[in-house]
């Protein structure tokens, strides 16, 4: 059954990347527990707008947990308290009446803040552009059944490909490492026969781009896996390390 709760929000407000930010306090009154977390922010924002005040900026789009656009840290947890859940799929029944929620953006050197809770994740695009693909021209593909793929490899590739690129792994990691994100793409393509020709070169250039973007190292905290809304496994990181070794030996 839905009910109404009152909350206090402490939200990070920062006008842009050049200005420093600070927490501001907002009451969130009469919040229906059936609301999603983002709908709760909508309600707070509608009130701010009506008063002529600047609403809280936050990225979002699909609100179904698949586009990877949303994301913020709630009381220290990336995407909030529920496992395998993006903030757009988090519901207010998860919180108790009277609670205070501290809401912050992803914090990482490689993700500069744009405004309030919105950050710039273009570093991820540049890492993919460094090699996260199979170089096949449109029209040049053989029949889809020309190369069978063992079901197990296809399933594992799909597990890795489920990554939505939200950046929670980076935000949750004490070193702001992007290893989970990068390794998911490296794994997907390394597991498929189509990915073999560029396998060595791909991992080397993606990792080198990752390093140059200012992401930190992985020191096995596993926070990335715990925060991942799509349950991407840290096994991918181990696989990526093996791929790197393999590429090193072969070059």
């Amino acid at each position, binding site marked *: 059954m839905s009910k109404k709760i009152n909350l206090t929000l402490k939200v990070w407000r920062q006008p842009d990347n050049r200005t420093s930010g600070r927490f501001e306090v907002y009451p969130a009154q009469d919040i229906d527990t059936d609301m999603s977390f983002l709908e709760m922010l909508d309600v707070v924002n509608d009130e701010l707008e009506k008063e002529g005040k600047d609403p809280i900026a936050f990225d979002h789009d699909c609100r179904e947990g698949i586009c990877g656009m949303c994301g913020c840290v709630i009381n220290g947890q990336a995407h909030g308290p529920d496992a395998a859940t993006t903030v757009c799929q988090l519901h207010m029944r998860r919180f108790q009446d009277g609670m205070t929620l501290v809401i912050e953006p992803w914090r990482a050197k490689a993700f500069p803040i744009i405004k309030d809770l919105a950050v710039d994740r273009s570093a991820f695009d540049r890492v993919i552009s460094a090699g996260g693909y199979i170089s096949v021209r*449109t*029209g040049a593909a053989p029949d889809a059944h020309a190369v069978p793929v063992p079901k197990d490899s296809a399933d594992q590739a799909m597990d890795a490909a489920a990554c939505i690129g939200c950046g929670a792994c980076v935000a949750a990691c004490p070193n702001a490492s992007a290893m989970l994100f990068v390794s998911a793409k490296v794994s997907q393509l390394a597991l498929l026969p189509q990915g073999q020709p560029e396998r060595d070169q791909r991992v080397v250039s993606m990792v080198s781009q990752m390093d140059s973007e200012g992401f930190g190292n992985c020191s096995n905290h596993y926070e990335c896996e715990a925060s991942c809304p799509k349950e991407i496994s840290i096994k991918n990181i181990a696989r990526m390390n093996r791929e790197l070794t393999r590429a090193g030996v072969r070059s």
Partner: protein
Amino acid sequence: MVLDSKVPSGPISEKWTKHKFDLKLVNPANKRKFEVIVVGTGLAGASAAASLSELGYRVKSFCIQDSPRRAHSIAAQGGINAAKNYQNDGDSVYRLFYDTVKGGDYRSREANVHRLAEVSVNIIDQCVAQGVPFAREYGGLLDNRSFGGAQVSRTFYARGQTGQQLLLGAYSALMKEVKRGGVELYPRREMLDLVVANGQARGIVVRNLVTGEIESHAAHAVLLATGGYGNVFFLSTNAKACNVTAAWRAAKRGAFFANPCYTQIHPTCIPVHGDYQSKLTLMSESLRNDGRIWVPKKEGDNRKPSEIPEQDRDYYLERRYPSFGNLVPRDVASRNAKDMCDTGHGVGSTGQAVYLDFRDAIDRLGESAIRSRYGNLFQMYEKIVDENPYKSPMMIYPAVHYTMGGLWVDYNLMSNLPGLHVLGEANFSDHGANRLGASALMQGLADGYFVIPYTLGHYLATHKVEDISTDAPEFKEVEKQAANRIEKLLNINGKRAVNEIHRDLGLLMWDKCGMARNESGLKDALKKIPEVREEFWNNVNVVGSPGSFNQNLERAGRVADFLEFGELLVHDALERAESCGGHFREESQTEDGEAKRDDENFCYVAAWEIDQDGGNPILHKEPLEFEEVSLTQRSYK
């Protein structure tokens, strides 16, 4: 004005092949001289941008989101059709063509649909080569599932994330071209207007959503792949940023808008549960394979579903359509649910829902079998509704899902405005009055990978397109207009939030121009929409500055365009006094209450010309001729 569809002559199965040969080519060295703007990075836009860059064109790619990978296509769940006939169950290009024309209730262009079916097979090859992890069987070959409106198994899928995987494939092709230097990315840019010079589409004016700057971009051709307009209803299954702005702005610059009233309402979505609701969530159509739909027989019966005995339940689809039962097409299932709720049989706290019950399937097959078929959907339902669908029936209600209407294009995907090409959900071309499941993904990728790479070259090779710079007065004028409009929005200083007025519009559209439409309701809507628009321009409060990251301003601009476009949609619905596919006019039904087409008077595409203010619509008709498929009345009894 005569609308020339440019459909090639000859037998249907040879049209595209012949046309490809007849199209003029741009020689490889010259391609580099041409710049192409692609707005949108969904399946249609990303595949087009990547493929054109591979050919040697210089491409600029724009999207609203922070990365091209996040376009709305990412949310598609079920699958993508292709006439591979890997199942040996009698599928063929012709059958896919036939099913699609029939599914569209005979309101699409035959030649386009046939081409779509032809290239569908290449799409699957291309995606597999890119590393898209489609579901496979133990032998390592691709698996298929069945979808509505077809008697063969031709749907390819990647778990419940087919759209995501196809989009990531197209995105990877795009990023490969970014690396090569053929594509320049412009994320977090919103197209505010189209620039026309010398009667040709020559560029766009965008707002940089981070800095607020107004930028101009010039090119030799402009491609819009900006998706559908379902959010004119406020609540829909579309992502929040889906909008009509790019298409509407192009329409105001002279491109015709075709069949805006063709909107698809999906029968199985999670119902509205509060005024604060921001969007609706789809529950896959596959659930209707095992779920039984019912409502209490007695009006206003508010007992718990478990307390309502069998004799007090009305399994209305099974009763009304004994041969198709719960598997009637989307439009029929949706209208019946509405009918039940309108007559007081709806359930849930709002009375705007019907039950989708798995009790019998669980009794018959066991809970674990149901879990393995639909586990992720049940989990999503439970997360949103906080009720366990294994224990009590799901509550569902129809919701706006897809828009078949869009900018008018010819066989080459070019609008009536030379140089402006339109791809994917943003055009009107292939689905007629109703789209079959798993066909939108197919169309987006067909347009981008396999049609536009041929037809764009023909345009550039046969038209004189002079060089133009963004300093030209045409650009400066449009920039000024865009800036003025932003200024105007920020100076309204009223009392209401943008969302509130968008919701007002949505309720009105849903009420008068939703699942069922009639003359007096539509006329009433035509009176009321201008009032809501008035309220917006007098009483909304858009805060913040133009020169900053300002989401309030972004939303306001989109809603302002919906407020104009909504009127055209209703106008089209009023003009089309027949029922067809997703467009149900209560005046035009069979004796048993089914949609009744009027082929004599309405077998045409309605292409609307509007003026610079978005008003005074003038109707241009493109007659639809059916050479292959004969027109019949659909029946599912």
